[in-house]
């Protein structure tokens, strides 16, 4: 019985703990630490997942570019993607719009990182993977907090 180094959980835990260490050494102010921990959580999750998922790519670019730059580039990229996709899936989009849950689809797009430029099918795929990774993240972080609180 040993750590499965390939599992998402281990990869994320490693990166996150490393980031925590770094933050612990570098930052002393609480506000900044909170912000950095948050970014570290997202970035380590996305890095553990890798670039094979749209949402992880979006998160990684978000972390790399910084929040402000990301907003700009994201808007541009999203519009570019949207234009391309509308050509190809114009009918699909129209159908989706007519179908039930168009508002919910939009909300889901806003929740899942990188989901703005996705059609519903891919969006649901990404959502499923995102949910799985979120649960992993929550479990790992809960473990860390529990460990720290007990020891």
């Amino acid at each position, binding site marked *: 019985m040993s750590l499965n180094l390939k599992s998402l959980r281990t990869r994320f835990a490693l990166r996150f703990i490393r980031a925590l260490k770094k933050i612990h050494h570098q930052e002393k102010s609480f506000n900044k630490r909170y*912000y950095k921990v948050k970014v570290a*959580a997202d970035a380590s999750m996305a890095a553990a997942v890798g670039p094979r998922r749209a949402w992880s790519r979006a998160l990684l670019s978000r972390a790399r570019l910084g929040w402000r730059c990301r907003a700009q580039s994201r808007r541009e990229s999203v519009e570019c993607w949207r234009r391309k996709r509308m050509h190809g899936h114009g009918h699909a989009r129209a159908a989706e719009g007519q179908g039930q849950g168009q508002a*919910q689809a939009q909300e889901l797009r806003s929740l899942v990182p990188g989901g703005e430029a996705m059609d519903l099918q891919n969006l649901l795929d990404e959502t499923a993977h995102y949910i799985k990774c979120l*649960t992993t993240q929550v479990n790992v972080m809960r473990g*860390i*907090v529990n*460990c720290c609180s007990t020891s």
Partner: protein
Amino acid sequence: MEMNDKDQSEVEKRNEDPLSYHPSDVSTDWRYDIPNFANSSIGLVSTGTCMAVCGDAVGASCSSGSMVDSFGQTVWEHPVNAAPIGFNELNVHNGSGVSDPLSMLKSGLFLQSMAGMLPHSLSQFPTDSAFIERAARFSSFSGGHFGDMLSPLGVHQSGSPYSRSGVMMQAPQEVLSGNSFKPVAGSYPQKPEPSLAETSKDPEQGSMERNSPKNETMAERSHDEAKQAVSTSGNDSDGPEFSGGVAQEEGPLTAKHAGAKKRKRGNQDADVEQATGSQQQLGEVKNSSEIQQRGEQNSTPSGNTSNGKHVKQNPQASDSPKEEYIHVRARRGQATNSHSLAERVRREKISERMKFLQDLVPGCSKVTGKAVMLDEIINYVQSLQRQVEFFVNETSDNVFRSSWSFNWSHFFSRYSMPCPPPLHPSQSPILPLGPSGTGNASDTLRRVISLQISNMGGGYKESALELPNAWDDELHNVVQMGFNGSATLDNQETNCSVSPGQMKAES
């Protein structure tokens, strides 16, 4: 396996009867859909179980049981490659009254098996002596006028749809449990068979009347319930979910397909429909009524379109069964332009994914409808994000409180192993990590860090290798990874954490 194929083809040849069945069209259409199946996630599910079911169901039926059994085994083992060949053989050698429905059933079922479904209907062969009569009647028909035949069939079958649907309820759970599919096959209702026979017999001629609508309605309802049962069973993976769902839907699917097909214009291929419909069925219960209505509306003006097109019929054709009895529509079906086809495919895929998400999100088994389901998903994602937020708060509060008093070994032990074995005392100075927890937690950590820094490279690794303890070795590797290398990772995260901080400072 190859020999079995030959044997079966021979047997079928012997029993061959002339039929108006057009295998070429069917096979063409069927082959068209095969790549889709091959690419689908449910393509090659449970071939072993399929074999078991096929063998069990068919073996009990008639003399050709063994042939079907071996054939099924052959076919299922090479679903993608052998499928076209096997199917062609099936089409070419349409048998007599008894074996004909079997072969047609096989052909229909074979397509469905591509999606990993079970030939449930096969189990019904032995039980119904009237079925043989019907089969004989079917074989004598050149096509087209199945109306008179169908009504007695409908009457015959209408009696026991409830019991069958009740039996069907248990089927998905058994399927999902991943056990042999024999009980499923055995418990499956009988009604799909004649529909299959009819549909496979008459792929081109749309003037077939529908089978008993009641049966299909019951099948739909039981199918719905079965689907609920499937979702409640809580399978996460697509595979079992699909196979189970597909398994359930086999019977009602074929029945619906039969009915829908009869209403179709002659260009619909029964098997293709079943094949595609089976895949569509997985999520389409809620959308079926609307699609069906749309289909019915489109049917009359659509007229005859190309025969080669695979219009994906809405298999749940229980909307207007009575109408069909009153006036037979020669051409019926959905719109066949490519746009609506693509739309339908898309919708099916989306419903597939919705089903998968339904299993992921806890407590969504009873939710039906896209909007409600999406709401649930959104709520769940939001709750997860809130939890992450909470734990980030907790981390920034607690973890940094004490001077990183974090017993890493403790953490890893708790995380990966319930009780890691104790370190060898002679090696404790080399590697302070371990459950024995020599010294302070922070001291341990500092020691580890210093050791890492000082013993970079081979020396440290050698000492690590000396450890007899596998767990310590693993942990050591993990910590080494964490401390040592992938400075790139550290940099990345540093950049992540620094840049926002800098930006904040600037603002």
